[in-house]
């Protein structure tokens, strides 16, 4: 019936076709499997270095040189321990953190926790849009163009994306974070000093040093991370079988997060601190980098900031809307008509609009606003961590995956330390903002 010679079908389905070749190489099998699981932990780790994180590290490096590098190891360990627990809870229960809290602790505690989460996240979203505004203005783009554009972009990606597509976009954007590592090398640091300060703890008994020190460790772990990490593990369908791989993903994420922070501190320490130019804001850091490390380095730094802020601006409203709707049983779906998921869309869109608008309204006390995450986080983080620990020790929920004694000790130590740190940090932050103590 047809004499025409047709091309044979192309090999599709990269996972089946492409990785099948790798299978023959023994160890590559596990690598291939890991690549399929990887994502939630790595993205959480990268998004951890959002605009507030970058601001904190820049200030740490420009004011105190390399002397705070050692804290990053502690911060990364804490991040890994807490992240592992959130991922484990997600893999075993198949439920988001908000849902688990609702089912285990009831309406009152859930409402309290989620209300604070909402407040903390609104403030953080404002901070991300402030980061977008600052970074775009370094490139001479007005914030009145960049910020609405960013909000639209985030809305588009989330509304038209499926989980896997969104994850791919986020992972791709995460790669941009390498710019910080390049900037770090371009800054030509004294690697000997860097190595020493990375492992040798150092204390200065003054309030400014202490407040920056606590800022670096204390702001590393935020409540929304646990919500985000757990829900992405759940929605990827990762369960008991994949958990060991997912744990590796979380650890790599914590390591990546620490590495980025490390290079930001190295960059600012080698340039701004070495030339005695301590900076207050991230935008100042990028501008001061120009004469000290060259245009390329300064631009890379600004791109990193823009990217980190965009990533976090995408992840935060989504996490918030899902956590709230999941816990209260409201329809939550990015693919439903508006009238069928009014709360979800209202929250998601509302958070984006509020976040974007706050940095566009002239005369708004942004600095005070940006303090809110720290203060509110100090209240919420202990609550969330303690609730998590309770669930993780409940064999009715976790089965044989409850915390081991060793892990409880480690997690308990982290929780205790974080509670002390965040509370002290919140107090210092408020004192500084109200002018009682000068920063």
């Amino acid at each position, binding site marked *: *019936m*047809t004499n*025409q*010679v*047709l*091309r*044979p*079908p*192309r*090999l*599709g*389905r990269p*996972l*089946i*076709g492409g*990785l*099948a070749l790798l*299978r023959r190489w023994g160890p590559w*099998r596990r690598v*291939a*499997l890991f690549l*399929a699981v990887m994502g939630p932990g790595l993205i959480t780790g990268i998004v951890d270095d959002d605009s507030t994180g970058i601001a904190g590290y820049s200030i740490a490096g420009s004011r105190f040189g390399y002397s705070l590098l050692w804290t990053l190891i502690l911060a990364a360990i804490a991040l890994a321990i807490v992240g592992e627990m959130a991922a484990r809870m997600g893999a075993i*229960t*198949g*439920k*988001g953190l908000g*849902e688990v809290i*609702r*089912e285990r602790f*009831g*309406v*009152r505690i859930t*409402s309290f926790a989620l209300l604070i989460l909402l407040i903390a996240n609104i403030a953080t979203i404002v901070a991300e849009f402030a980061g977008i505004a600052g970074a775009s203005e370094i490139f001479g783009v007005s914030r009145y163009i960049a910020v609405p554009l960013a909000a639209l972009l985030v809305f588009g990606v*989330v509304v038209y*994306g*499926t*989980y*896997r597509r*969104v*994850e791919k976009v986020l992972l791709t954007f995460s790669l941009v974070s390498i710019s910080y590592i390049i900037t770090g090398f371009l800054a030509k640091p004294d690697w000997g000093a860097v190595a020493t300060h990375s492992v040798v703890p150092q204390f200065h008994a003054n309030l400014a040093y202490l407040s920056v020190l606590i800022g670096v460790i204390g702001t590393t772990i935020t409540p929304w991370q646990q919500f985000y990490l757990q*829900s*992405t593990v*759940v*929605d*990827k*369908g*990762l*369960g008991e079988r994949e958990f060991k791989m997912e744990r590796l993903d979380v650890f790599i994420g914590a390591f990546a997060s620490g590495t980025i922070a490390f290079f930001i501190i190295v960059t600012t320490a080698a340039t701004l601190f070495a030339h005695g130019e301590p900076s207050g804001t991230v935008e100042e850091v990028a501008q001061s980098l120009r004469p000290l490390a060259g245009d390329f380095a300064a631009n890379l730094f600004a791109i990193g900031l823009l990217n980190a802020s965009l990533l976090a601006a995408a992840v935060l409203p*989504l996490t918030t809307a*899902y956590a709230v709707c999941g816990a*209260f*049983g409201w*329809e*939550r*779906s*990015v*693919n*439903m*008509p508006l009238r*069928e998921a009014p709360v979800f869309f209202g929250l998601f869109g509302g958070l984006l609009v509020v976040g974007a608008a706050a940095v566009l309204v002239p005369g708004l006390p942004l600095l005070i606003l940006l303090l809110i995450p720290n203060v509110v986080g100090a209240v919420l983080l202990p609550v969330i961590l303690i609730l998590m620990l309770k669930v993780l020790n409940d064999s009715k929920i976790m089965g044989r995956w409850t915390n081991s004694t060793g892990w409880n000790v480690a997690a308990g130590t982290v929780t205790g330390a974080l509670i002390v740190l965040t509370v002290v940090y919140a107090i210092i932050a408020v004192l500084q903002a109200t002018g009682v103590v000068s920063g």
Partner: protein
Amino acid sequence: MPFLSQVLGRPTLDADGTRVGILRDLLILTDIPYPPMAAIVVGDRAHLHAIPWLHVASVTPRGTALRSRVRLEAFPAPGDDMIWLGRDLLDKQIVDTHGVKLVRVNDLSLTPINGDLRLAGVDNSVAGLLRRLGLEWLERLFGRGRPRLIDWEQVDIGPAVDEIRLKVPFQRLRRMPPADIGVVISQMSPGEAADVLEALDDEIAADALAELTEEHQAAVVNAMEPEEAADVLEQMAPHEAADILGDVHEERASELMRLMEPHTAQEVRSLLIYEDDTAGGLMNSRLFAVAEMETAGRVLEDLRRTAPPEDEIYYLYVVDSGGRLRGVLSLRDLVVAQPDALIADCARQDVAFVRLEDSKEEVARKLIHYNLLAIPVVDEHGHLKGMVTVDDVLDLVTPRAWQNRPRRMTG
């Protein structure tokens, strides 16, 4: 008509008015319609006692009254064989089989009938939430009126309660049409959906799974026990199973194919080499091909004996001895033909077809252009490989608004 949240935590008094403890929970057996309370749980945090309903005079928001004087210690600790309304159902997710959705239990409505207290319905409204928070005045302020209740006989508590305590898990859910089950499980996380599918019959589970988005399907299959997943995949059309296996990671895909029945696995494997959105990736390789040298009577007999599913015999495709597509025949043509007539003589030769690597759009265009329910797929030598039905390209031929399926977080 009290709500559970209004009666829990209130004092329990015996016939003399002596306080025996706090009402902690109410217990039911589930296999009775609108189940009556079977016992109440009274006590402090450490020591709980189950008092059978025959000792209970009334349970109201003011408190619980017993019929006689009792010694609390005489009653045993409550067992796990019954459902605890507060512990097992409150705040958990259940299925509203009437509204076809997953809902969270904000409160439970109780009705006193002839000395019994029966479970009447589920409150998943904001009013229920506010009542739990002690903010009922807020609700009155906005005057939303009475809370909307979901009738107890229309809910399935399967997702909230572990299987052991239900004789037949998902009793009401499994009576829903598979398409509706699909809608319900699409609102669940992959792990939860996997639990439901594992409890259902393989055939129903396969139909329900087919309703999910491709990405969600892969995540659910990934979360299922491998043996159960393989059983369900076997029940699906090979091209649908291939779509799912193409989306799960390679390790799992080969494990599942090992567990599947070898013949089905082979069919699936042969489909896996085609790209997703081509005729080859879309097609069903199971079809009822008719040899041109057969007689109409023999073919009818074969049809009767094998009874293929409806969508595989929209059209009967005619092939020559080498398996090359020669023509098409409708069921009507077959039925009205003389039993000894040769198929080659009653078939139509001008058959529309697509090639393996034709795009999904091209397939849809031809289906619409020729106004067909299905179209055959051939390889470069004209061999009949399968067919694509209009269902497989539905998303290209129906208005977008009809396709909305609820999805989960970003997916």
